[in-house]
Structures are given as structure tokens and as C-alpha cells.
């Protein structure tokens, strides 16, 4: 990096909304975006006229393949009455809407626009698992696809390298899943708002009612160790290590610092943004971290003049359980090889000193890929403004939160830092 990064002028988030994430057989993705947009409008404290929006940046990844439509910018712009304002689609695989957010920040910081809508949308559930796997492979490294790697396979391979280097094992992955579900249980927008214990008890109840033999699981880990309950997908990734296939939409409203008081007295300022790119498995320097995340973090912390320990809560891209462990280390929250221990010690729980994925994360909340990046920011918005309801973290003077988004198998990574002031 030559010199320090800076923004031309301040940018603040003054509204945030999302649809419920899940599998919606009877809804097209554009109507999910309408839901997210309407919720966003309702969160702007002093109200706003949508006609004041200067431009739309929209993240989407797979709709070309799954819906056979790629030109989503103007479709969404028309849906919410923004035409003829410019609409631009961004593509960064599962980080598509984090890139939309960044473009929106740059557009305002440059002085060109004052009010920008950024968001993402994705429709995945109307395809079968094989088609979805094939569609997502559009973001994979071709050498890896050639020798049979799948998305869970790449993360599984990184997990085996991590296990060998640091002495972790499958039990540590299960801690991530159990925590995600405990948080997601409290999120009404989550695809799975149940804990692992709830799922386990439901299974036992079902077996009783059907007169089947009753499974002898004593706790969540015994349930997750049972291959009938939690089959292998790509060793050591099992079903409950993997995020689901989801539909959903999310969006946030960005405005220039000078006009923020017209919208709210309680804005979140964009203090740090960072983005990096990474290589395939064969070319990585090390198989136990994501260089793109480390670069994005360096850029974002530098801009914000903050350190990892200043981040009070974070949403991180837990597409697979091992990913959450690695991100905690790459973002500097814990030292390399210490992430799995921090989770085991409960440090990242809702009531811990560093709550991670209070929304339930991708695992529980769902992962409509293009909607995930701004969806994570919706959670940070709620938490920093004290509006997260049952899952509000009990940290006093909660001001600084971050969201980490990852595209592909680490090809694109971003970090966004928001501050309430």
C-alpha cells in the first residue's frame, strides 16, 4: 500500500432492512428485495422520500445461472420506483453486496452522490442441490473443480491442514455450530431459528411418536457425532457445518455526512472499509488462512485508525464452521491457532466479551449469497442501535461493529467497520 487510505468525505448508514431469509417457493427474489426496501424505509428515523435516492448498487451472483436473468440493476430500480436513476450490479460471488456497499461508499465519498441505496438479492431454492452446487462452482478455482473439489471440499481441506497445524478437531467445529444456532434461535429473520438442542429434541420426539427406537443422544455433540443425524458432506465438513441454500434480500441506505441530520440523530458512520483478493489452494502461501481477509482487515483498520481489539461485535462469513474459526484469526481478534480455543471458552458467545455472528451467521440466518454482505450490516445496525431485541448483546457503550464477507473460496474478502457516534 502506498500511503494511508482515506475517504474524500464522511459517509453514514441511516437505514437498514432485510427480508426473511429462507426457501420461498412461491416468491421471486425481486419481491424479497421489495420487502427489504420497505423495511429499510421504516428504519429511517426522520423518514425519507425514495425519490431522493441518487443511485442503486446491487449485489447478485447466481441469478444468471438459476433464473436466467442477469441484468438485475434496472429490474430492481424499476420495482422500487427509482428509474431513471442509475443502477449498477456488482459481482463478487458470495461477497457481491459487500462490493455494492463499497461502491456506494466511494460514490458518496467522492462527492458525486449524496444518497445511495446499496443491497443484494439472491434466489437459489428453486434449483436442486446438484444444480446449486454446479452454479456456485462458477466462483470456484477451475483447477480445483477439475479434480473433484466442491465448495465444502475446499473448506474441508483447509480444515484438515488447520487441524494438523494447531491440534484442533471436529469437536471444535461443533462449538461453532452450536453457538450459531443458539443465536439464530433468537432471530425471527433466520432461516433456522432453532437451537441444535431443539432440533435434537424434536428428532427424539418424532421417534417416540412413530414408535421407532429412541436415539440415545445425551447432548448436542453426541447428536452432531451421529452420522444418521449429521452425515458427512466433505470431510471434515458434515451437514451441520454447512450453511443452507437460501433466498433473500437486504439493503442499507448511505448518505453524505453533511446531510445525515436530515435522516436520523442516531447514524452509523462508515469508518473502515477494506477489500482483498486471494489465490487458489495450490498457490496459497499457507492453507490455514485467507490472505484476502488479512489484506482487507489491514486496509479497513488503517482507514478507521482502529485495532482488532476495538471491534466490539462482528458478523463473519461462516459459510462453513471452519471458516468462522479462521476469520477470527485473520481479523486479528485472536492469534493464529487460538480461534478454536476462544470459541470453546465461550468468548464469542452472545454474552461473551467478543460476540460473533449474533444473527446466527450464515449457518442459521441463511446464505442467499448476493444478499449476505449487506444482510450482515443489517445485524450490526440493529445491535449498535440497541434494536436487536432478545439477542441484543449486553455490552455497555456498544459503539463499534464490523462485518466480514467472503466470496468464492476466499477469492474476494471484505471488512466493513461501522461506528455509532
Amino acid at each position, binding site marked *: 500500500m502506498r500511503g494511508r487510505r482515506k475517504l474524500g468525505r464522511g459517509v453514514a448508514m441511516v437505514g437498514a432492512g432485510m427480508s426473511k431469509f429462507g426457501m420461498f417457493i412461491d416468491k421471486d427474489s425481486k419481491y424479497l428485495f421489495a420487502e427489504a426496501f420497505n423495511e429499510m424505509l421504516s428504519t429511517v428515523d426522520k423518514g425519507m422520500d425514495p425519490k431522493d435516492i441518487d443511485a442503486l448498487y446491487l449485489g447478485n451472483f447466481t441469478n444468471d445461472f438459476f433464473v436466467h436473468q442477469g441484468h438485475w440493476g434496472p429490474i430492481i430500480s424499476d420495482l422500487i420506483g427509482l428509474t431513471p436513476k442509475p443502477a449498477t450490479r456488482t459481482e463478487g460471488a458470495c461477497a457481491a453486496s459487500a462490493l455494492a456497499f463499497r461502491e456506494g461508499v466511494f460514490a458518496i465519498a467522492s462527492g458525486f452522490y449524496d444518497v445511495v441505496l446499496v443491497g443484494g438479492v439472491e434466489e437459489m431454492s428453486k434449483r436442486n442441490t446438484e444444480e446449486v452446487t*454446479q452454479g456456485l462452482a462458477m466462483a470456484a478455482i477451475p483447477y480445483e473443480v477439475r*479434480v473433484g473439489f466442491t465448495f*465444502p471440499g475446499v473448506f474441508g481441506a483447509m480444515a484438515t491442514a488447520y*487441524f*494438523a497445524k494447531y491440534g484442533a478437531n471436529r469437536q471444535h467445529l461443533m462449538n461453532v455450530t452450536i453457538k450459531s444456532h443458539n443465536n439464530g434461535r433468537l432471530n425471527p429473520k433466520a432461516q433456522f431459528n432453532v437451537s441444535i438442542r431443539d432440533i435434537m429434541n424434536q428428532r427424539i420426539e418424532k421417534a417416540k411418536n412413530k414408535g421407532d427406537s429412541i436415539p440415545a443422544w445425551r447432548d448436542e455433540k453426541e447428536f452432531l457425532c451421529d452420522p444418521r443425524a449429521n452425515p458427512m458432506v466433505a470431510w471434515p465438513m458434515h451437514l451441520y457445518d454447512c450453511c443452507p441454500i437460501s433466498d433473500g434480500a437486504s439493503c442499507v441506505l448511505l448518505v453524505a455526512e453533511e446531510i445525515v441530520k436530515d435522516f436520523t440523530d442516531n447514524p452509523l458512520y462508515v469508518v473502515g472499509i477494506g477489500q482483498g483478493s486471494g489465490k487458489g*489452494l495450490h498457490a496459497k502461501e499457507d*492453507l490455514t488462512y485467507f490472505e484476502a481477509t488479512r489484506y482487507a482487515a489491514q486496509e479497513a483498520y488503517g482507514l478507521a485508525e482502529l485495532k482488532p481489539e476495538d471491534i466490539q461485535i462482528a458478523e463473519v462469513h461462516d459459510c462453513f464452521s471452519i471458516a468462522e474459526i479462521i476469520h477470527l484469526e485473520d481479523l486479528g481478534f485472536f492469534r493464529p491457532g487460538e480461534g478454536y480455543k476462544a470459541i470453546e471458552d465461550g468468548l464469542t458467545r452472545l454474552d461473551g466479551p467478543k460476540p460473533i455472528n449474533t444473527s446466527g451467521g450464515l449457518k442459521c440466518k441463511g446464505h442467499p449469497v448476493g444478499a449476505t454482505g449487506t444482510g450482515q450490516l443489517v445485524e450490526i445496525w440493529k445491535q449498535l442501535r440497541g434494536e436487536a431485541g432478545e439477542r441484543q448483546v449486553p455490552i455497555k457503550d456498544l459503539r463499534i461493529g464490523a462485518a466480514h464477507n467472503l466470496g468464492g473460496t476466499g477469492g474476494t474478502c471484505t471488512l466493513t467497520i461501522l461506528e455509532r457516534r
Partner: protein
Amino acid sequence: MEGRPFNDISYERFLSEEKLMGSRCQNCGALFVPPRTICIKCYGIEMEWIEMKGKGKLAAFTCIAIGPPFMTKEGYDRKHPYVSGVVELEEGVRVVARIEGVDESKPETIKIGTPLQVEFLHRGEGENLITFLAFRPS
């Protein structure tokens, strides 16, 4: 051999001839497998082909139960998973490959660091012939 362009098509063609080939930067000596046309260390563009010995060790692996259509066509499924991995070659670079000859029913017994030997898997016939890079314990 010298005349072939440093790209993935040449790499694949070499595999079908049972050769694992990389490109070496004539300026700084950096080695790349699969080959690169631009040296990412010194930005040199003069490359030469170099054949790997085909020996290495397992750096990472996964055992895949739900694979893409071309693997299920080979008969792999939830009951018959296959192994893909990252192999660190003696020459110091890594490649991704299929891993044969390990017990895919007991992935917890597969050890990182296992010494491996290259193997070329030929599938299909005529114009549809594809060669997959693979390794098995040596």
C-alpha cells in the same frame, strides 16, 4: 515441448502424456505448477517448461460424499466418497489432485504428511479422453 504455450491447455495435454509439467521463470527461477505466463515474483515473461519428479506429500485433503455430476458418473456417491487433496511436491510447490489408494471410509485415519507418488487417471475415449492428476501413497 519447447514450442508449447504456457497455459492450461498445454498443462492438460502434458497430463494426458503422463507428464506433470510446470513453468520456470528464466529471470528469477520461480517455479509454477500449473504453468503461469507471467512470473508473479519478478514479472518476467521468459518461461521454460520443467517436468516434476512426481513425488510429494499430502498437505490437505477432503473426502467428498456429495460431488459434481462428472464424479457421480464415475460411480461416486454418499456411500462411495472420493478424496481430493493438496499435494506438496518435492520441488517445493503445491498442486491440487485426486488422491487414490487411501481409506475413504475412514477419513480420520488419513494423515497429513503421507508420502505420495503421482498417478495419471485416464477417463473416457477418443476426443472425450480426459486425464486427471492423481497421487497415491508411495
